[in-house]
């Protein structure tokens, strides 16, 4: 989705030029020369970035701030040719505000535009990373991926996607195809799912009578994807002998159907994918090194879901929305359910999340999805030995208890080390342990019991 900017300045010459620069940075620019007109525009349209002059014929840019629903709009910058401490203090005390002085350096303006554009990614409805349809999430790794996709979409470079199973490699491949504007279709083939003896035929096609059972000519996926994108999933599962033919097809931009002689041009963008480490696959002989370099003009590593922060909640909400549309429901995820989503490790990534949300949607009574205790989501925690995850509502006593016990465990019951890490004395640790032991905790289970 194209970000929007509103430039409010009664200096029409500056406003017009700023609008052209913003358009060059990918913004849809709107111009206004008064507070009243700007208010009308802002009531009608959400803006990702507002650049407003402080001194306007019918008021001040500050009036805009005071009358705006800031939560509805994105990044805001005030610009002035008459700076004062008072106006600067008022400006920066408002949220998401930059205070800029005229004359504005063009590089400085472009930098502000880029920051606003980044902010726009975060505030796009439903968290589509940089507005790419299908690519949900606004975490740092996903925004970096979206940025890369935007940069390479219009090129012909081959792309290698790596990432655990269920991280959305096909979603990213489709997003790249959609962004590319290529005329042909998106075609995907799972190289690990097709019997090896049939894979050549599926990839390159075959002529009638080329082998037993070849009753008619078959057009392979390379030809099907002409002028489009061909996704070769699980590329490391492709037989090594076939990888030689694949490399030749990629180098020449053409294929020969099995049993045929004719060279058929195949202008396709290749997106390969694997859930294995490609370098390890090369080392074990599962992937030819020359093919790897041909496939990985650009390599994109998809993060596991547990490294994507609150994306998990955004994705889950999207699944619930789709289920509501499908079943005409009005269900939603409760705050406790969202906390459960954030705590879970998601070893099966988005695929596991989809399954868990669907199960909760169909099984839990009522409209509020709590992801009930006992469900796989609630059963396991993202917490590791080196971290503690607390939910809102956890008592301070419990937080203190867990912090103490886990830190002691981390330092193998070395109380001076744990005391240093916690910023307390060794004596305090002993006192806490004694208090815990005298409460309902079994002293034998305490780390200090054996020390």
């Amino acid at each position, binding site marked *: 989705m194209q970000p929007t900017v509103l430039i409010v300045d009664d200096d029409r010459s500056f406003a*017009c030029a700023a609008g052209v620069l913003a358009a060059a940075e990918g913004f849809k620019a709107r111009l206004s020369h008064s507070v009243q007109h700007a208010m009308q525009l802002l009531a009608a349209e959400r803006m990702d970035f507002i650049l407003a002059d402080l001194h306007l014929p019918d008021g001040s840019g500050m009036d805009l701030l005071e009358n705006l629903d800031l939560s509805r709009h994105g990044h805001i910058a005030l610009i002035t*040719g008459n700076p004062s401490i008072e106006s600067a203090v008022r400006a920066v005390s408002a949220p998401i505000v930059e205070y800029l002085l005229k004359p504005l350096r*063009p590089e400085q303006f472009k930098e502000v535009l880029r920051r606003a554009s980044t902010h726009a990614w975060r505030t796009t409805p439903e968290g589509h990373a940089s507005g790419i349809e299908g690519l949900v999430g606004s975490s740092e790794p996903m925004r970096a991926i979206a940025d890369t996709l935007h940069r390479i979409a219009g090129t012909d470079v081959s792309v290698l996607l790596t990432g655990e199973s269920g991280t959305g490699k096909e979603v990213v491949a489709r997003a790249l195809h959609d962004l590319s504007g290529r005329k042909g279709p998106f075609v995907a083939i799972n190289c690990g799912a097709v019997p090896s003896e049939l894979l050549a035929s599926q990839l390159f096609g075959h002529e009638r009578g080329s082998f037993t059972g070849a009753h008619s000519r078959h057009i392979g996926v390379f030809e099907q994807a002409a002028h489009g994108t061909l996704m070769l999933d699980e590329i490391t599962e492709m037989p090594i002998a076939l990888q030689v033919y694949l490399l030749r097809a990629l180098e020449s931009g053409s294929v020969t159907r099995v049993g045929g002689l004719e060279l058929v041009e195949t202008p396709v963008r290749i997106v390969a994918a694997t859930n294995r480490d490609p370098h390890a696959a090369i080392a074990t002989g599962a992937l030819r090194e020359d093919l790897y370099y041909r496939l990985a003009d650009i390599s994109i590593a998809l993060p596991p879901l547990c490294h994507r922060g609150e994306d998990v909640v955004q994705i889950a909400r999207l699944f619930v929305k789709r289920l509501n549309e499908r079943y005409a429901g009005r269900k939603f995820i409760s705050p406790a359910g969202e906390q459960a989503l954030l705590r879970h490790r998601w070893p099966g990534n988005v695929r596991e999340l989809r399954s868990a949300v669907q199960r909760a949607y169909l099984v839990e009574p009522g409209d509020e999805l709590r992801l009930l205790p006992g469900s796989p989501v609630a059963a396991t925690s993202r917490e590791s030995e080196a971290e503690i995850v607390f939910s809102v509502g956890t008592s301070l006593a419990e937080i203190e208890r867990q912090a103490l016990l886990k830190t002691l465990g981390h330092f193998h019951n070395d109380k001076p080390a744990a005391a240093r890490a916690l910023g307390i004395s060794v004596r305090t640790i002993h006192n806490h342990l004694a208090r815990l032991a005298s409460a309902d905790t079994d002293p034998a289970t305490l780390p200090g019991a054996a020390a």
Partner: protein
Amino acid sequence: MSLWIHELRNAINAACTNTAVVKMLLEQGETERARQFNAAVLSACEKARMLMENPPEKEP
């Protein structure tokens, strides 16, 4: 004094921003549009020149 500075800053600001647009358009080969924005640069520079010729009197 503050009004004079304000207007001078505005004039230089317009000149700077329009110059950036002219540079960008020339790099894109859009000479006709560049010419239009160049006129805005010249206009802003002229305004700045006039302001410089008529500075406010120094406050005691």
